[in-house]
């Protein structure tokens, strides 16, 4: 049976340390754009930790919510792409094909989670920082969209290795960088089609809910939390 990659984010465990963000940047060659560009809204973080205050001081409570691409089944970003750069793979990944992307940025508008990022300029690394780039991941050039891939390079490497050794994938051995780096174990990655996997069992948890579920995009990421999370008033 085909894999169906999914994730569970346990908000009760998240401490907002942003280790996932750092790990993701290192793994996926995500360019840092510098303070000036970041202030203009050009910062790229395939995973971000959203921070919201609840209540009034001194009763204030800080909550964190890591948001990454939700790898939706009915992803709104996919159909709007004129060139199929964004589409669903048979393993349930929301693929972003860089070489096919012409940069309409329509997908980023259609995504209600705002987890798609655009290379406004050519990314650059001051020498010798280019030596730390991950050779297994493409360098995206100016004008293309990019987003969380669930570390597809790791998925492919693990599958290739398993096939060479003629064995099945082991649940939990394959992890994207964010889940691997999370000290609190708040991010759990795995195959939703394997009923025995941790992620499949956790996503059935009564604490679980989907982000912006009402839009019907059917995301493959489940958020666990003890109590309902209330969005601050829109106004």
């Amino acid at each position, binding site marked *: 049976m085909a894999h169906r990659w999914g994730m569970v984010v346990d908000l009760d465990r998240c401490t907002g340390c942003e280790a996932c963000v750092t790990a993701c940047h290192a793994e996926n060659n995500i360019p840092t754009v510098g303070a000036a560009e970041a202030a203009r809204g*050009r910062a790229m973080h395939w995973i971000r930790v*959203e921070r919201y205050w609840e209540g009034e001081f001194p009763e204030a409570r800080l909550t964190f919510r890591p*948001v990454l691409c939700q790898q939706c089944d009915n992803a709104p970003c996919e159909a709007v792409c004129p060139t199929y750069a964004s589409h669903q793979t048979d393993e349930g990944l929301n693929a972003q094909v860089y070489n096919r992307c012409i940069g309409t*940025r329509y997908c980023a508008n259609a995504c*209600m*989670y705002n987890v798609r990022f655009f290379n406004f300029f050519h990314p650059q690394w001051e020498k010798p920082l280019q030596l730390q780039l991950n050779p297994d991941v493409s360098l995206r050039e*100016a004008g293309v969209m990019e987003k969380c891939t669930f570390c597809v390079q790791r998925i492919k490497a693990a599958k290739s290795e398993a096939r060479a050794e003629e064995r099945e994938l082991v649940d939990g051995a394959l992890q994207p960088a964010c889940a691997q780096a999370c000290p609190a174990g708040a991010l759990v990655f795995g195959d939703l089609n394997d009923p025995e996997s941790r992620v499949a069992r956790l996503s059935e948890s009564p604490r679980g809910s989907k982000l912006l579920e009402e*839009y019907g995009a059917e995301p493959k990421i489940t958020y666990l939390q003890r109590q309902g999370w209330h969005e601050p008033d829109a106004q």
Partner: protein
Amino acid sequence: MNRTRNNPLADDLVRPLFHTSVWFYGAVLVLATVVLAGAAAWGYQLWYGIGVAGINWPVFWGFYLTNFVFWIGISHAGTLISAILRLVNARWRRPVTRCAEVITVFALMIGAMFPIIHLGRPWLAFWLAPYPSAREIWPNFRSPLVWDFFAINTYLTGSLMFLLLPMIPDFALVRDRSTGWRRRIYGALALGWQGTTKQWHRLESGMQIMAIAIIPVAVSVHTIVSFDFSMATVPMWHSTIFGPYFVAGAIFSGIAALIVAMAALRKLLHLEAYLHPVHFENLGKLLLLMSLLWAYFVFAERLTVWYGNEHSEMAVFWATQRGEYAPLYWAMVVCNFVIPFPILALRQLRTIAGTVVASFAVLIGMWLERFLIIVPSLAHKPLPYTWGDYAPQPVEIIIMVATFAAMILLYMLFSKFVPIISIWEMKVGNQPHPPVVTEAEDELAGLWRARP
């Protein structure tokens, strides 16, 4: 030979082709400089990346798409209006049709450029076209941008034909009146038109069919442009009203552009004898109707959002009503309704000057409307953590100004090379009717007297 019946008319209307003032060259020089500045700005953007524009995360669309929708809207001035007037056989249409259709063709060309300018990798824009390639991948026909590609191309092809076909007999007229290089060029353009009865019949029935075909295409074009927004579940984009709302807005801004262009032609090419106050009066009434329709759509759209009280939509709603976009929003209401309504509703104010003032207001207001549809929604998507804002950068402003200059420049050059008023259609309007047909002999004068 020179004393034939309709010669004064033809003399008048081909005069701009043969006589050019110093002012014209000066204006062309100035406008061409502005257009070149825009081209240079685009080159700069191509080299360094689209990041030199003000777009950002999460406002991924800004001035370029605003201008795209605006210009496609302007393009509804010509072909659509002209086709409707042809079909209902409105007798006052004759001097108006060509100068309207030209607006369509040029505005469409300019409008269609903007989605390409705004691409991250514009050199790959041809991937929107369906063609077989080694990659074996075709465009995604589920994407509204591909719908745009097809709709705009169909509309541009149709409009171009709609404009060019009735030009053939006028090219023949210029051919016969000129010598030297002009005669060769216009002779080639006239395609050997002789004016046989067969040719006239084919032309007229062809135009009739084109007029019927082009109206649904024009409606579909702006509906599909609205789909670019309404297909996405972005607050205040995802609205079923967007199709008709955009079409109405397009016709609204289109008529305004037509009035401004006609007033300029009348003044600069001395066409007072052909573009009468009655034309401005009639178009002014149409503009009034569209202004009311626009106000109705805006009210209906805002009311449903306010009543629904859905929190992410309310964020956009309040941002435009009393937030950071409120000044622009209320300026839009003033420009699109408060100014034009009294001017166009009162007969004493519905003069040439009055309609021109109202039209300028409408053009500004409709540009603001497109901006206000795109930017505040993107800046206030459902997760408040991701809210942002947008400010245009010089390169966007330069390119935008350059396209306005390009429009004026193209229009000026066109009026220098082609009689801007269809001569043969004017002649038909002046035809003495044989005894069996009983109709007013001078339709323009008749209409003028029959003013309500």
